[in-house]
Every structure is written in structure tokens, then in C-alpha cells.
């Protein structure tokens, strides 16, 4: 097969389009769905691609975090508490596989594809009016940056999420039925995993947001205003198990269809899965590398357009993240000024 054959295989007929008609359809959709354009801005902000990548990656965190589980059969041990963070590149194919598996489902329903997910304490975010109130509600001292780039102005808003917990029970039946519904075949759940439980806790967490809309939420239409800086601080999440070991779970999840060789290799390469938080990084959209922040090793993640940056680190039992439309040095300066 030569290049002409490839061209032929990919179709040689140029589609004939009518841009006028297409524009009319576009405008009708914008009107009927109340879609608002992005507000013109004087400087780059987080792009929607980045936000989409992060949102999708957040779903992968659940799966990847579940990999970081080890334990001794029959005993309940706290077996995961992150002491460090590491980047795990997630390809678009991985996200697609995940989206296919969880299309249209919320976290609880998506996890239901492999068993039963039950909140024992639901996360209930609330807004408070000051940092001291946030510290009081969270039960830990909320750190604030001493210096901010000129692009970040005004006072932050504070959100607090309570300590939340959930139990996940693996189910071979649920796995089989879920696969059948999606017309795919999943590897059978090993008998010793079937029925075993994970106990997951997270938070409390405090989120400080600069540049968030102060008016009525959603007043601007379908496109929400994008914050200029988000700082998150949370008690490190923990996972306990009453049976399944890290090797068993890792082997099973890596045998799922749709996981790319790159993702599988990166997960296998995690040195100590009981204390390493895998941070999914969209491989096509972002770059990442280790950085020193607050005297510990953290992770820098950047949108490969150079528009957005995130710094994530763990120190003294707390997870921190700084996200915004900054350069790497600006993001690190903010992170290192936290006190």
C-alpha cells in the first residue's frame, strides 16, 4: 500500500459544504440553547480543553487511586495514604475508554460497573465568608499565598468540603452485567476480589478561588466564568481494604480492555503504590515533571499551550494544589509563598 492507496482509503472526495447554511444552523443552535460566547479577555485563561481534560482526569483519579491499594487478606488495614505524587500520562484513548464505560453516569453509577459504591458520609460543599471560618470548619489551618501575580486580583471565595467516606464492594455479577450492557466482554473478576471491600475517605478540604463570579451562579448563561486562581488544600485521602491486595487489583484493572500500553506501563512503574498518589495527566494536552515545592517533591502539570499550570504536592499529611493561568515559575512562586 503506497500513499495514494492511503489517500484512497481515507476517502478522496472532498465534501461539498454550504457555509451559509451551516452558519445559520450554528446561530440557530446558539440561540435555541442559550449558548453564550466566551467573554473577551485581556490575558489567557484556562481553556475549556484544559478544563475538560481535568474533568475527565478527575474520573481517572478514582480508578488510578483504587490501584494504590494493598493489604493482607482477611484483615482491615489502612493501606493507602499518599506521601508523594506522581504523574500518570492518560491518552485520549484511555479517556475515551473510560467515557465509554461511564457514559452519562455519575461517580456512584460508574463505580457500580464493578460493584456497589455507597457513601457513608456524603461530601457536602458549602461556602464560608473568611479564611478563619474555613479553617474552623475544616479543622486545620488553611494556608494562604503571601504573593500573587498581578493578574490575580480581589479577594478569594472559600469553599469547604466535609470529611467524606464511602465503601466500595466488588461484585463479579455487577461487572458481568455491566459489560453485557455495553456489549463488551470484561475479564472475569477473580473470586478473591469478588465481595471484598474498599473503605475510602477524603477531606476535609478547603478550596480558595480568585476570580470566581460573585453574582448569581449561571447568570452569564451556559458558559461559567473561569477562576483566575484555585488553591486546594485537603487532608490526604486514605483507602483501606478488607482483602484485596494491590497486586491483585492492579492485575485485574490492567486487564480491562481499552487501557493503553502507555498507561499500563506508567501504572506498573509506580514504585510504592501504597503511598503514591497517581495524578492523571492528559498525554496529548499537558506536560508534567517533578518540582521541589515547599521543600518536598511535588508535581508540575502544564497545559502544553502554555496557558495553564498546576502544582500539586503533599506535605505533613495534607495535599495541596495551585491551579491557574500562569507560567511554571509564577505557579511555583505562589505555591512556595503559601504559609
Amino acid at each position, binding site marked *: 500500500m503506497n*500513499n495514494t492507496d492511503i489517500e484512497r*482509503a481515507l476517502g478522496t472526495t472532498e465534501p461539498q459544504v454550504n457555509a451559509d447554511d451551516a452558519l445559520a444552523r450554528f446561530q440557530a443552535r446558539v440561540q435555541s440553547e442559550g449558548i453564550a*460566547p466566551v467573554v473577551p479577555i485581556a490575558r489567557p485563561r484556562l481553556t475549556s480543553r484544559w478544563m475538560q481534560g481535568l474533568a475527565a482526569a478527575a474520573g481517572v483519579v478514582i480508578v488510578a487511586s483504587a490501584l494504590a491499594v494493598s493489604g493482607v487478606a482477611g484483615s482491615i488495614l489502612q493501606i493507602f495514604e499518599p506521601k508523594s505524587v506522581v504523574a500518570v500520562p492518560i491518552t485520549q484513548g484511555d479517556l475515551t475508554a473510560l467515557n465509554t464505560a461511564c457514559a452519562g453516569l455519575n461517580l456512584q453509577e460508574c463505580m457500580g460497573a464493578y460493584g456497589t459504591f455507597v457513601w457513608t458520609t456524603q461530601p457536602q460543599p458549602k461556602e464560608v465568608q473568611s479564611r478563619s471560618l474555613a479553617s474552623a470548619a475544616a479543622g486545620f489551618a488553611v494556608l494562604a499565598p503571601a504573593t500573587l501575580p498581578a493578574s490575580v486580583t480581589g479577594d478569594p471565595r472559600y469553599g469547604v468540603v466535609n470529611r467524606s467516606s464511602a465503601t466500595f464492594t466488588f461484585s463479579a455479577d455487577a461487572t458481568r452485567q455491566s459489560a453485557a450492557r455495553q456489549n463488551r466482554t470484561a475479564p472475569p473478576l477473580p473470586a478473591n476480589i469478588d465481595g471484598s471491600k474498599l473503605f475510602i475517605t477524603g477531606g476535609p478540604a478547603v478550596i480558595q478561588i480568585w476570580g470566581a463570579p460573585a453574582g448569581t451562579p449561571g447568570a452569564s448563561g451556559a458558559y461559567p466564568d473561569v477562576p483566575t486562581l484555585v488553591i486546594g488544600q485537603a487532608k490526604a485521602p486514605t483507602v483501606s481494604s478488607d482483602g484485596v491486595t494491590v497486586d491483585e487489583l492492579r492485575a485485574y484493572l490492567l486487564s480491562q480492555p481499552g487501557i493503553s500500553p502507555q498507561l499500563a506501563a506508567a501504572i506498573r512503574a509506580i514504585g510504592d503504590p501504597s503511598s503514591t498518589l497517581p495524578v492523571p495527566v492528559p498525554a496529548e494536552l499537558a506536560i508534567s515533571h517533578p518540582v521541589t515545592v515547599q521543600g518536598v517533591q511535588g508535581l508540575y502539570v502544564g497545559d502544553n499551550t502554555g496557558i495553564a499550570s498546576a502544582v500539586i504536592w503533599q506535605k505533613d499529611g495534607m495535599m495541596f494544589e495551585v491551579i491557574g493561568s500562569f507560567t511554571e515559575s509564577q505557579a511555583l512562586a505562589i505555591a512556595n509563598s503559601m504559609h
Partner: protein
Amino acid sequence: MTLPARDPGHVIAAVSPAFERLFRSEYARVVGIAHRVLADQAEAEDVAQDVFISFYRGHPADASYGRAWLHAAAAHAALNAVRGRDRRSRREAAQAVPLDATAAQDDPAETVAASETRDEVRAVLARMPERSAAILALRYAGLSYAEIAAALDVRASSVGTLLRRAEDAFRRELR
């Protein structure tokens, strides 16, 4: 949100002149990229509409990266769409439209063979690594190396190598 009154028979001026210019200049290209992957014009135009909606929501119309963003989004959205099809719907779609003008044969056997070939082509694109599939869609939709480099955020000097690897992978998969 107050919407302007509709004016029947006239395109409603709901978008900025800058966005309209971008739409008019890039619509055919965006459809063309999606069409390379989907081989279905109606589906490619649906993807193009979604791509422009995403851009409209999230980016200034005069953004310097606008064209590159649209090209990349067209390839990725089309690849996502083709992966989302199940095997049966792919076959139906493949049979709905001929492979190309030369394949629009009267001979039913040739038409079926062409459809099966195209069905396999889409399956190969869906299996390939994202960047490799995207670079094929972009190149065979007529983008220059510089445009591909901008869309995929790679060095222009790397495009030739990446394209050759993608073509080799495509040939291997299609055997």
C-alpha cells in the same frame, strides 16, 4: 438572558463578525478533517458544529490559536465519534455512502467490497494511537506540515517523521 427577536428568512446576527469570519473560513476545512475519519458527510458536519460550539463557548474568536485549535478538535472529535460507534452502526454508515467517486460502482459486489474496506479503515483509525490517527486525518485533509505542527503542538520538523510512522502503522494495521 434576553434573546434578540427572530427575523424569519434572515440569519440572526448572534455571533461576532470575528467569529463569523472564522466560521466561514474554516468550516469546510473542519468538515473535511472530520470527513476523513468518519466518511459520512452528515456526521462530519454534526461534528463540525459541535467543534465550533465548543470553541465559541471557550475561546475568543480572534484567538491566535483559533485555526489550529479547530483543526485539532475536528480530528479528535471525529476519532471519538468513530470509536463510539458500535461495529454494526459503522457497517451501516459505511454502506450508506460510497467510498469515493470512483468507488460508486454499479457492481454490487464492488460496492460491498468498498464498504467493507472503508469499515475496516475506520476500525484501524479507531485502534491507532490518537496522535497517529489525527495526523493522518489532518494530512490527508490537505493540511500543510506547518498547520499540522500547530494543531498537534509538535515541531514542524517532526511532522514528516510522525507522518511516516503513522502511515507505516496504518499500512500494518490494514493488512
